[in-house]
């Protein structure tokens, strides 16, 4: 960053290259696009080569790379790992920025002893933007909340692909909504904020006077508006747990997309040491932890978190809320085919997700939080108090599909609800970085404790050791204990030549060792020479003891 500022200054002095200057100036004030994320990732990797490794795990159908930056030192594949993932839901722009800033803030301290020690025992896998083709719409001339990648799909399953997208009828560069005056419509204006449209309430005497549609034309004249636009598959709907077949945005098959498979293959094959996946997206089990559902957890196809894992979620949620205070969150229930659920149910790891930001509380004159019955009304209340220009006022347009009706275009600007003003991002990123680093400190960690060597008779030696988990996480989640992709803790003993293992296992496995828990191992050895005991798993790190028996 310093270098670019210097270059910028130089350019200004020379008085040339005005275009790069304005772009550069924007970079500090705005969310970063795919190309800016790419250069930031490369810059990080160049600046911290000794502790980073930048890799592209896949290319999208338009040729963009899905980047992952591995951060750690030493035997990085055998230190407990945390995957930090942003932008699986492409319209979640904040997630990409928080993920990238996590890497930047962590590496900014790379030369401190504290961070050096952390990186020598912990590995971070940072994926800043998993669906770049969708996220690009935020930076395009025409902005709308796009979650589909660049794969052409037949979202409405009528035999045609991408045949009915949006049109910017009022020419403002945003796709918002249209309301059409119509007797049969069942939308009406909100009683307290006339900008907001709400469903009619027949019992309350309001039958509704508008149809509410997305901005555009019914290009294929099938009665649905903008139901099959450009692209694509929502990567956050393409993971394998509870895959939503035949739904718009799902693709025909689970894990069909390069983006999805790139992430999956990397996490399964390269990053087997990952013990927790932390993702940014609409799902939220951090400010509010998941609740135990015995029925769902007991089913053959497990669809509720198991009880021990619910306890861990609660522990982590408490830490999140101690670190980050954003007020009451809107509903962030897990969604079919999402990353959050895949990482738990199919990858067997602890999985956490947060939107990273939501509409803050708005206080009235007495300093009390105002009450709202509608998310948009609450958002507008906050935006008004912050002088945010995030609403397009309803204005009449001529609409060829409704030649005899009054049609108005307006509504919340796209991305407003999930994407705070960039000035807020720095603090949000710092607190989320702090949270992730707290989780890292709690990592499962296998040590060989109470190592004892004693004579057990003539030419016989007994070795006893506790395989101890010094972390705050179990060495595997309760569900992960069932899954072969989650490595068990292995304990092995090696003896020198002419030594004989009289009793005890050459190698043994533990499905999981609880936080602060241990398993005692004992061996009876005949003869003299070197004994090596090694215990651990890629998710906990390995610990070794050596002893020479005379």
């Amino acid at each position, binding site marked *: 960053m310093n270098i670019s500022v210097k270059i910028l200054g130089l350019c200004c002095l020379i008085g040339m290259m005005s275009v790069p200057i304005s772009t550069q100036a924007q970079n500090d004030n705005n969310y970063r696009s795919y190309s800016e994320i790419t250069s930031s990732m490369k810059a990080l990797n160049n600046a911290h080569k000794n502790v980073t490794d930048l890799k592209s795990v896949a290319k999208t159908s338009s040729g963009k790379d899905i980047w992952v930056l591995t951060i750690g030192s030493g035997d990085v594949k055998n230190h407990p790992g945390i995957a930090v993932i942003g932008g699986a839901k492409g319209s979640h722009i904040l997630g990409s920025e928080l993920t990238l800033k996590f890497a930047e803030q962590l590496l900014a301290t790379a030369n401190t002893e504290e961070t050096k020690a952390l990186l020598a025992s912990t590995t971070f896998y940072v994926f800043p933007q998993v669906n770049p083709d969708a996220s690009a719409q935020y930076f395009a001339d025409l902005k709308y909340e796009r979650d589909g990648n660049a794969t052409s799909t037949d979202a409405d399953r009528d035999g045609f692909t991408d045949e009915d997208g949006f049109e910017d009828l009022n020419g403002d560069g945003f796709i918002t909504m249209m309301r059409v005056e119509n007797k049969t419509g069942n939308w009406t204006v909100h009683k307290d904020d006339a900008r907001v449209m709400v469903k009619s309430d027949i019992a309350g005497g309001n039958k509704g006077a508008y149809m509410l549609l997305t901005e555009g034309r019914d290009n294929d004249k099938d009665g649905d508006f903008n139901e099959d636009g450009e692209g694509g598959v929502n990567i956050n709907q393409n993971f394998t747990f509870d895959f939503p077949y035949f739904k718009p945005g799902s693709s*025909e098959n689970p894990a069909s997309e390069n983006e999805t498979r790139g992430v999956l293959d990397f996490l399964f094959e390269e990053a087997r040491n990952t013990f927790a996946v932390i993702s940014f997206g609409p799902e939220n089990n951090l400010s509010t932890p998941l609740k135990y559902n015995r029925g769902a957890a007991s089913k053959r196809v497990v669809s509720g978190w198991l009880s021990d894992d619910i306890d861990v979620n609660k522990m982590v949620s408490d830490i999140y809320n101690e670190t980050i205070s954003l007020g009451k969150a809107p509903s962030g229930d897990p969604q079919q085919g999402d990353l959050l659920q895949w990482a738990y149910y199919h990858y067997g790891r602890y999985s956490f997700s947060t939107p990273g930001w939501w509409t803050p509380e708005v206080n009235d004159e007495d300093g009390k939080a105002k009450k709202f019955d509608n998310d948009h009304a609450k958002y507008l209340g906050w935006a008004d108090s912050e002088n945010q220009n995030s609403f397009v006022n309803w204005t009449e347009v001529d609409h060829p599909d409704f030649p005899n009706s009054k049609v108005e275009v307006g509504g919340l600007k796209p991305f407003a609800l999930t994407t705070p003003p960039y000035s807020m991002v720095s603090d949000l990123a710092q607190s989320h970085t702090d949270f992730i680093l707290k989780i890292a400190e709690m990592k499962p960690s296998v040590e060989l404790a109470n190592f004892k060597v004693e004579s057990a008779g003539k030419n016989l030696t007994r070795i006893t050791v506790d395989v101890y988990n010094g972390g705050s996480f179990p060495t595997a989640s309760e569900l992960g204990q069932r899954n072969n992709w989650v490595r068990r803790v292995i304990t092995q003993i090696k003896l020198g030549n002419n030594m004989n293992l009289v009793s005890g296992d050459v190698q043994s496995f533990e499905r999981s060792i609880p936080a602060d828990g241990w398993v005692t191992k004992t061996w009876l050895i005949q003869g003299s020479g070197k004994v090596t005991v090694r215990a651990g798993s890629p998710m906990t790190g390995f610990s070794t003891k050596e002893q020479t028996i005379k």
Partner: protein
Amino acid sequence: MKNIRYTLLTAFVFGLMFTSNPAKAQLTDGVFPAAGTPSNPKVEATWNHYYNYKGISELTERIAKAYPDLAKRTSIGKSYEGKDIWMLTVSNFKNGDPDRKPAIYIDGNIHSNEIQGTEMAMYTAWYLTESFGDVKFITELLNDKTFYIVPTINPDAREHYMTEPNTGSSPRSGLKPIDDDGDGLIDEDQPDDLDGNGSITQMRRKNPRGRFRAHPTYPNMMVRVPDDEFGDYDYLGSEGIDNDNDGRINEDRVGYYDPNRDWGWNWQPNHIQGGAHKYPFSLPETRAVMDFVMERPNIAAAQSYHNSGGMILRGPGVAEDISTYNRQDVQVYDAIGEMGERLIPGYRYFVVYDDLYDVFGGELDWFYGVRGVFTYSNELWTSYEMFQSNDRAATDSYEFNKYLLFGDAMQEWTEYDHPQYGKIEIGGFKKNFGRAHPGFLLEQGAHRNMAFTIYHAYHTPKLEIDEISEKNLGGGLREVTAVITNSRLMPTHASIDVNNNIMPPDIISIEGATVEAGMVVTNRDLNQTTEQKNRPNRIELANIPGMSSVTVRWIISGGSNYTVKVDSQKGGVISKRK
């Protein structure tokens, strides 16, 4: 070969003053045709042995070269080790685009040790090409339909099964190396062919306190003694030693995953479904099949070959999917499956989850669930076939081996000095017996199973335009009514397809007329119709059910020489001029 014979024959026929028909060429070669078998094939092939990868590559290539208008060989992808996965497309290429005809997809050998599906599949390609032109039914079948035939979708491990020591039940997996036991080493403790006969057989050890003894009539057979008696032997499991000295024998074999748990319908991870790999289609072989099938919406039927047990299986694989298979579709499945029981004596038509065991993420559920394709898996070979009797005994295999195979399937017990177990004996059935057909029954099995798939393929939709009629409405308007019939069992859209719009609708269009309005006629006698407002010249139908007719109608204001065209993904493309 045929050409040479033909030349000789021609000379001969001319010599006999045209008294003989050239189609009976083989008479001069010393054979007389048996009914139902190509008696003078252009492609020499024998069906009493198994083809290895080289044999498959050569035979598929020879069929394609001999019949360029009927068979084309392509590779649908590469296996993990880089072998081409060969496919034969069989159809009359001179009668329509094979990719637009209703099609059946056939594969074999997904489980590498279940070898004979490959021969069933290749026999089908061979039989169809050799019979085209000679057998009227087959000629019409290849005019109407396409067969996509992939003899093996697990070529790596098929080769491993044949060339490396295995049991009749291994490897089953593909060959991607996996650390099964999680010790950081990969495939480090495989079974060992201690006696060097190419098969992994069994190990036993003499022990006066043992739980087993030799069968009095068939001493190769080990029998468990009654609970209150001691026997003469310990049974020690499959041939092998503890290669990695970890206190366990044969615990990290080649592979291991199950390619038939790698499909993307109700896929579940390995803690729910053993054998599952990373995610659906995470193996290159299944992915190649999926990619191919996704691009062929004309595939209406599918068949995969497994062994063993004599079963014709349909989904669902698990009770959770019972509601996926609804009544109309089950009727079609039943009609074809029950015919299969008749055609292949000893085979039973079963539902996987109900009659066999649970399978999440299996091939047949994916074909049906994601593509709406009617699909069966046949478990080839059943002990019924040994004595053609349902009155079966545990000694049948030993008796069959003694009196029909003359002992060829058996490795006699022989002594061996085992590093962990000491003095033991090794013996038992070789890998090519128990699951694979014995040679002399293989051709029969291939023909009968092929006949079942031909019945299945025959009943993919066949659309015909029965009627185009016109009525003058006056005022310059005419009413055109077209009746389209599906004359086979299978609908153009399975009910799972109709419910989820998997395939686009069937399109009935009129070309060469000025269309004012279009509609589906729901009851012609009572003139009940449903108008289609958008694009009335191309009427969309969600389905044309099996053995049924649909009626559509246009109101036209111009055109007299028009054509009605039917375009159905699974029913093909047909047209008829007024």
